[in-house]
């Protein structure tokens, strides 16, 4: 048992040193590094949108409606990626739209992960009626196709930033819950948990200080892999007009705006869509890298 305790202490020490080693390995992984760099660019754009964007995203230049990008042969004057029906600068709107996509992706994944971790560890540790109740509810939510559930929910609660986060995380925690619950069940029979219990540690301490550090990496992997999907979901909802209110520029609703003028002004919907694809690609590249480094055996589609 003493050996097991020493083992646990060593494990804790390794966890403490891990972040730095993890960062080094991530940057050494070519595709993950690429994803990380693209993601950083988007992050900087989001933070400094008011400095980078040449125009106010909602400023309408009515004389320059549907002006083509400057670099085209028949390009208009001064709009890098052209303008939309109201003469708003598409580049500026894309820069500001980064905020919505990144924030909603990050927030809904984090909330899903935290809720999944809390419920999953408790359900796996205490079992009993709590586990049965939460597990059945999770099964129920799993029965819904994700986007359809989110669409139904947004239709009821209406558009809005926090409503989007709510609609995405309302079902998002389920996958984390299932993963964490299974891992907790497996960890519970391990010697180090028994050792902690023998030393008189409280349940809360066993969960928080002993089990959690040993299972959290799988949740981190799942979170990075899921974030891209959350961003696509947000964009899809915005595309359908169920995202943030129209005055906030969001990539999905920009693509929808361009739909109406697809045949005359292709740039209106093409560039915001390209931005979505680039961001999701970056997140997915990073996610694959994180998975290969932290947990190569984990199989998440």
């Amino acid at each position, binding site marked *: 048992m003493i050996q097991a305790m020493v083992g646990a202490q060593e494990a804790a020490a390794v966890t403490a040193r891990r972040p730095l080693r993890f960062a080094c390995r991530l940057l050494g992984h070519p595709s993950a590094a690429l994803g990380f760099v693209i993601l950083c660019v988007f992050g900087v754009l989001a933070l400094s949108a008011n400095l980078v964007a040449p125009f106010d995203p909602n400023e309408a230049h009515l004389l320059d409606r549907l002006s083509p990008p400057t670099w085209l042969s028949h390009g208009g004057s001064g709009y890098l990626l052209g303008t939309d029906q109201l003469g708003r600068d598409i580049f500026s709107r894309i820069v500001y739209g980064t905020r919505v996509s990144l924030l909603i992706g990050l927030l809904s994944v984090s909330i899903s992960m935290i809720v999944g971790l809390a419920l999953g560890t408790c359900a796996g540790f205490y079992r009993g009626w709590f586990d049965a109740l939460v597990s059945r509810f999770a099964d129920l939510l799993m029965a819904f*196709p994700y986007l359809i559930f989110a669409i*139904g*929910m947004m*239709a*009821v609660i209406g558009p809005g930033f926090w409503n989007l986060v709510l609609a995405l995380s309302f079902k998002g925690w389920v996958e984390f819950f299932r993963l964490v619950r299974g891992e907790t069940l497996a960890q519970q029979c391990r010697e180090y948990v028994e050792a902690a219990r023998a030393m008189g540690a409280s349940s809360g301490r066993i969960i928080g200080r002993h089990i959690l550090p040993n299972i959290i990496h799988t949740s981190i992997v799942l979170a990075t892999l899921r974030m891209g999907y959350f961003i696509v979901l947000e964009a899809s909802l915005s595309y359908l007009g169920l995202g943030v209110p129209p005055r906030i520029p969001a990539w999905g609703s920009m*693509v929808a705006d361009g739909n109406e003028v697809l045949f005359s002004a292709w740039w209106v919907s093409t560039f915001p869509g390209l931005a979505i694809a680039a961001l999701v690609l970056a997140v997915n590249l990073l996610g694959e890298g994180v998975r290969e480094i932290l947990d190569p055996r984990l199989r998440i589609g």
Partner: protein
Amino acid sequence: MPRAQEAMRGIVILRRVLATIPLMLGVAVVVFVIMRAIPGDPVDIIIGQGGTATQQELDLLRREFHLDRPLHEQLMLFLGDLSRGDLGLSFVKRRPVASILLEALPATIELAMASLFLSVLFGIPLGIYAAVRQSSLVDRISMAGAFLGISMPPFWLGIVAILLLSVRLGWFPTSGRVSLGVLLEPVTGFYLLDSVLTGNWAALWDVLRHLFLPALTLSVGIMAVVARVMRSSMIEVLRENYVTTARAKGLHERTVVLRHALRNALIPTITVVGLQMGVLLGGNMVVETVFGWPGMGRLVVAAIFSRDYPVIQGGVMLYTFIFVIVNLMVDVLYTYINPRVQL
């Protein structure tokens, strides 16, 4: 022994089928609860669209939609109606929601089946080839392509496809299920089937041209996932002892891969296809909107803007039931492919 095994399988399948009943009931309750979270009274919404109404008319409407009863009674009435296949009346069209949705269902199923067909048709061979020729140029290109495919939002892919293949090259129509001038006798509502049944080959060609782009758009993401999973599970299976044995017997590599390894490698792929059906049904709604495809998805999206809650509620429920049933079918199929599996 085989007969006992058959009986066991029958019991296992029956148990799985029975388990879906409480699940569907639960789904209905969840949908009911969420739909009751609508701020305000649904009757105000109906009147809001129709103009002014007297108190008497309001009361009549409330009674029609059971809004004068307590909530638990409303739930019981709702479940009772549901068990008879009654999804209520549309606020806007004033017709039964069930018949509105059922009219649009064949279009949705036709699109979903076509994209599933495309994803499996290309995804599985691509995955097998990439696994057998690991690290070859084809492997690298197809896996990079699959990665891109997973990252692209389907609605944008559809728009790019329309721009390039319809507008620029003029190969495909931009929207709809069939051209205006084409006469097609409705038999089943599935236009592909209808045109074959009536022997209308010109219509078949027209329907195929309309179907191709939306189906392709919808299938790209799933095709990518299928190819990736197929590749990794095939690589794993090819390392198994029985594959080495088959090779040692001097069998041709093609026989080893297609007759010995494929069956086991397909198992994870089928699971993933089942899980992807959720993505397929959700993407369906978006892609139908992009291509003006007259299916359930477009109907529900239109209902959101007219705040036609019974249609939204019925649509969400019907999509979910389809998803549950497809997953059930995948599980049953599973027992046939992998006899070791216990549901």
